[in-house]
């Protein structure tokens, strides 16, 4: 029994009971305060988050032997909720994602891996293409 069925049962109950107030249309009503939505596709600790400069698109990276970055649309007006856009695989033995950021125009995504060389990679995130990649130094990354 999932939320959909629960909601359906609730809707059916409401429809059955005409006295009960109807649920507001989320697209038309403003969001309630301190409400949270969750992106639960990660399977380990999320170590980096980046937000598109103009769009409600979020990129997040996690710890993994083969680190990857997930891109999804978090537009609140989307009825289907959070929609998955793309997955960027940083490569073997990258261990994790230290840092993520979009370019000012939002066309490229920069990722810093957690491998000993802190490999820096620039992605065309829409197509999922690795534009350029280079090794940095092994100093610790804080931003």
């Amino acid at each position, binding site marked *: *029994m*999932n*939320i959909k069925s629960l909601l359906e049962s609730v809707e059916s109950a409401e429809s059955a009971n005409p006295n009960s107030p109807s649920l507001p249309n989320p697209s038309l009503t*403003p*969001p*309630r*305060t*301190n*409400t*949270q*939505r*969750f*992106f*639960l596709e*990660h*399977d*380990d*600790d*999320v*170590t*980096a*988050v*980046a*937000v*598109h400069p*103009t*769009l*409600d698109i*979020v990129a*997040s990276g*996690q*710890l993994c032997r083969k680190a990857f970055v997930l891109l999804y649309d*978090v*537009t*609140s007006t989307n009825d289907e909720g*959070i929609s998955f856009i793309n997955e960027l695989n940083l490569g073997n033995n990258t261990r994790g994602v*230290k*840092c*993520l*950021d979009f370019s000012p125009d939002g066309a490229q995504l920069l990722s810093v891996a957690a491998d000993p060389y802190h490999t820096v990679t620039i992605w065309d995130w829409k197509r999922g293409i690795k534009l350029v990649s280079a090794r940095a130094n092994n100093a610790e*990354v*804080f*931003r």
Partner: protein
Amino acid sequence: MKDSYYIITGDLVDLADPEESIEYGPGDWLVGYPEGDEQAGGHYVGNRLKRVEGVVVSEGVLQPLLDEMVDREEEEEKEDVGDDDEESIDPTDPADSGMFISTAPDSASLQSSPDNFSSPHAEQVLKPILNDTTEENAATALEAAYRGHASRKASPPKKSNPKSINSSPQSNNGNKPFSGNKSKRALVASPAVAAQLEVVSLPTAASPATKLTLSAPQLASLAQVIDGRLRKEFGEREEALKAMQEMMGKMRMQLTVLGNEMKGKGSKGKTDQAAAAGIEDGGASPEDITKLSRRKSVQERFNSYSFDPQLPRVAQITKKAPGELNEIDVHRIAAANSVVRYAESRSAVYEPTGYEPLGDRNTAPSGELTLEHVHGYSGKVAKSTNCLYLYSGEVVFPASAAVVIMNTR
């Protein structure tokens, strides 16, 4: 007590004693002890000494010695009538205390220095008598020596009193008397004798000294007699020793032969026993036994076994028919069938009692959990910029394995 040796007044019985095991030769010292000295074992003949100092002669032994000496001189006189005594007889020096049987005396040096005594005792005893060279004194001394030489109670020899000597009891043990023998008297009366007197005496604390004066040829002849006896005994002893050595050698050879035979028998017996055992077992020769005892390899042993494929496995044999099984057997068989073996576990694992297999009920329970709210965010793991605003005004931050989009309005 060693100083109190007799010269010529000793006991030759010891030398003739067959039980005496002391080996002595012409170069040995013969030292005697006075009779009655039980501690020293009576008469003693020392061995392994440099030379003959003297021979302890008892009364009964000296008597036949003197007789033999006289007889010998008589024979020599008969043979060599015109010859002088000096040629045939070496003048023994009185200073040489081993004058009688000494084999290597330096006679020339001793003659040149007659006062050179080998021992102080000999000097003490011999010197005064040597100085007294009168013929009368010498004759009386010799006569006294002949008659009572062995009487320990006689007077000292220096001032020999014929009366006292004559008055002393005759201690000859039934030997023939000397008085009627002319040859002896002639010996005694010979003038050359008096010049070279030889003293044979011993003064000791237990017994007073006795003297026996002899002339040089007499002494020489006496020495020859004693020497002959000694040589005879030595020869006999040497022969006996040789015979004993030969006997010992033979015994040794026999013993070695016996030992070798015993060793050979020991090894032979073992082989014979093994051979006999082999024959008793199956008439096999020792070679066959060695072949059988050779260890087979594992493959050989495995090939020697033969298995019938039609034989039932022992594990499949049931002693009872299914209808004859009782409750215990049913439980036992059930327990045996319920064994579960894991690769990680050595022992067998049994399912718990009352266990029912899941079967079709192996599904997850109905129901879901939904995440309502996240209180907190992971700022330590995500060290980069980890809290961002969306364009719509929502806050995006990571929390563990989730990304939270929070509407703060």
